[in-house]
């Protein structure tokens, strides 16, 4: 599938109808989502024929992208039942097979190394300090091959240090810097739209 085609399909997905600020629910835009998964597939071969997990999947944009790029099995995890309902509809709309599980990422345990690749757009930890690190820690425990994640560019050094030192990463690499355009979603947002710089990371877990 071509990048443009993937981006187009993701652009038609439904997003949060009633976003919850405490969960830092921001939609993963089709531009970022398509590039993230396209890179994972075309530069590293981490998606097609792999088992992919999406942590904090929200409305399932990254899950859907993984399924569209021929992941053999996709799981989406989120704490919010309303998002998962939308995610289910999105999967049906695209006619892709995704299994969703409602759970708290911080106490999720999976048996065995089933998951090859984890993809996520975690909370950036702006509302709840450390939320980004909790997601990264969880993903690194579950994935056997690679973890793709978005983090604020301003936290780059911190992320790298934590990944290598605390989360058992063999490598931690920023693949590119992207502009994340946040539409005005919440009342406390003063400006209409704001671009924040985010890094697309690829982490390799150490083999256990």
């Amino acid at each position, binding site marked *: 599938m071509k990048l443009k085609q993937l981006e187009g399909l993701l652009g038609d997905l439904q997003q949060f109808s009633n976003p919850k600020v405490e969960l830092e629910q921001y939609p993963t835009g089709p531009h970022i989502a398509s590039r993230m998964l396209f890179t994972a597939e075309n530069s590293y071969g981490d998606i097609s*024929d792999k088992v992919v997990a999406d942590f904090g999947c929200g409305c399932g944009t990254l899950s859907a992208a993984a399924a569209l790029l021929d992941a*053999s*099995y996709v799981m989406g995890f989120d704490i919010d039942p309303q998002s998962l309902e939308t995610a*289910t509809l999105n999967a049906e709309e695209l006619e892709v097979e995704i299994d969703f599980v409602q759970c*708290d990422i911080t*106490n*999720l345990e999976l048996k065995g190394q*089933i998951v090859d690749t984890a993809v996520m757009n975690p909370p950036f930890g702006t509302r709840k300090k450390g939320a980004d690190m909790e997601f990264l820690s969880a993903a690194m425990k579950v994935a056997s091959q690679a973890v793709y994640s978005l983090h604020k560019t301003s936290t780059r050094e911190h992320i790298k240090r934590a990944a290598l030192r605390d989360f058992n990463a063999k490598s931690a690499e920023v693949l590119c810097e992207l502009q994340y355009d946040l539409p005005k979603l919440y009342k406390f947002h003063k400006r209409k739209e704001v671009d924040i710089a985010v890094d697309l990371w690829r982490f390799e877990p150490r083999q256990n």
Partner: protein
Amino acid sequence: MLSCNIKGVSNGFPLRIEAGKVIEKEVDFNPDFLKHMFAKIEWKALVEGARSMGYAELPEDSPDATVLDSGDETFLRKLHHALLELHLEEGALVCPETGRKFPVNKGIPNMLLHEDEV
């Protein structure tokens, strides 16, 4: 609903499946994926899970890995069905240790813990 339930563990493995409504969906057959998964799954858990959803065709004991490349697809077809085509639409996943039930609604298991369980 797939192996992930059988594997999605909070405290105790494997979760027992209490089937309310099971649906079957047809999924493309992919032998390479099945071979890949075969090496990773807990066989007994899969057999139990499939049986509680009404599918009893899997052999009790894990077959030798040579069956995967024998050219005979019978076994792979069964594995395919149990792993990918059986979906638990309504029911519950039950912790074998505590008996705690995690409800499954519209195919989505709710694994959230109560405050006093964290």
